[in-house]
Structure formats: C-alpha cells, structure tokens
C-alpha cells in the first residue's frame, strides 16, 4: 500500500468512525426521547 493510500484510509476511518458514532447517538436520542414523552404522557 502506498503512503498516500494509507494516509487516506487512516483519516477516512478516523473521521468516518466519529461521524458514524455521532449519527448513532442522534438516532438513539430521538428514539429514547419519544419513548420517554409517551411514558410521561401516560403517567
């Protein structure tokens, strides 16, 4: 693997990994907030 390919893969993995985790947190937050609202509405 060339130097340029390795550097590209490393930076893509780094920022891609952070972005994917942030997206996952956002989806989980929306789901949990909706569930909590429903439960608090019932209570």
């Amino acid at each position: 693997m060339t130097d340029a390919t390795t550097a590209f893969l490393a930076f893509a993995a780094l920022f891609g990994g952070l972005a994917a985790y942030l997206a996952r947190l956002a989806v989980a937050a929306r789901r949990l907030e909706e569930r909590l609202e429903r439960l608090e509405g019932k209570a």
Partner: protein
Amino acid sequence: VNWAVRLRSVTSWGALAALIALAWATWLPTPWGNAPDWTGATDVAAPLTRKLLFYHPALAWATFAAYGVTFAYSLAYVNERRLRHDSAAHAAAEVGFLLNTLALATGTLWGVQEWQRAGQSALATVYTEPKVLVVVVMWLTFAAYLLLRRFVDEPDRRARLAASFGLLGFLGVPASFLTSRVLKKSLHPDVLGAGANPDAALGAYEGAILGLSFLAFTLTFSALFLHRLRLARIQDRIEQLESA
C-alpha cells in the same frame, strides 16, 4: 439541569472547532506557519502517514481518559451499589471503545508504513509489538464488557460483572505505558519522557499542533461522553417509569 446542557453545548462546539482547526493546521498553511511536511526527509518512510502524529497519540490519550472514567465509576458502583454509577461507567466504556478502535486502526496503518523487522511481514511486525499487544488485550476486554451487557438481563448482576471487567480492563492503561519503557527493544516510541521520542525533534509550531490535537481529542471525548451519559439518564428514567 441548565449547567449540564450548557456544558454539553460548550464541549460539543469546542470539540468541533478544535477538530476543524487541527485538520486545517495538519494539511494547510495558517497565519502562524505552514503545515508540517516530511517530504524529502531521508529518515521518514511515509511522510503523509506521519501526519498521524497529530491524531494517533491524542486518540490513545482520550482512550485512556475514557477508560479512567469507566474505572472510577466501576469503583463507585462496587462501593455504593448504585445503578446510576453503572450506567455512567457504561457510557464512558462505549466512547472509550470507539476511541480505542480508532487508535488501533490509525496505529496499525502507521506501523505498517514505518516499522520494519527483518524476516517479518509489516502486519506481523505491528501485532508482535508489546505495546500493541497490551492495547489489543485491553480492546478485547472492553469488547467483552460491552457484549456481556447485552446478554445479562438482571441489572445488579450485569452491573457487578461489568464493573469487574471495567476495573480489570483499565489495567491495560498503566501496562501500555510501562511496556515500551521496560522493554528497550520496543519499536513503539514513548510520547512522554526522553526515551526515543521523535516528537522531541519537532519545532515549536509542530509542538503547538500536537498540543492542539490533545485539546481536540480531550474535548471530543468529553462531548461524546456527555451526550452518551444523557442517553443513559433518559434510559434510567424510562426504566423507572416502566417499573412504577
């Protein structure tokens, strides 16, 4: 709870600004200096990959900080048996595992380019390095920590088991610090201390970028942890309401 919202917001925007500034300074000129460039340096095998110097050590530091938080909350759970501490330990472990994975991925790619041992493939050289092996064992311990939480339903038993993995896994942090200092044939350079440290040869501007990288990833860990902790608290509240 206003202060928690404010803290989360400040760390999130701070992390974003610091990461953008770091990426900028790594690759482009700024008013304070040109991007570090090792092209043409005879002792640097991969000048572009070498720019991971401004990411990989800071990622490793953020991993250690995250596992330190898991350790502290696991200890608090063992002492007080409050599930609130367990969910905070879980939040830090999850973020730590992500940072650990990224540190391993960037370190592997960097090592494959820059490390050589006679008669060994590049990947074998990286994965027979003592510090890397210690970090892989730590990574596996926290993978087990996160997996076991999915398979144990009873909250107290799950918290007890997780706390023991959290405490045990953290031992990898001092162990990884020690390996390259005790084993003198280690290829992995030390970030702190005088031992074979390539950072010592950095100029003031490169040193400032390195400092910025530690700030950026400390803020990134803090922001991710605070967001994940908020989810843990919502989950705790849901479980409270459902059991009432």
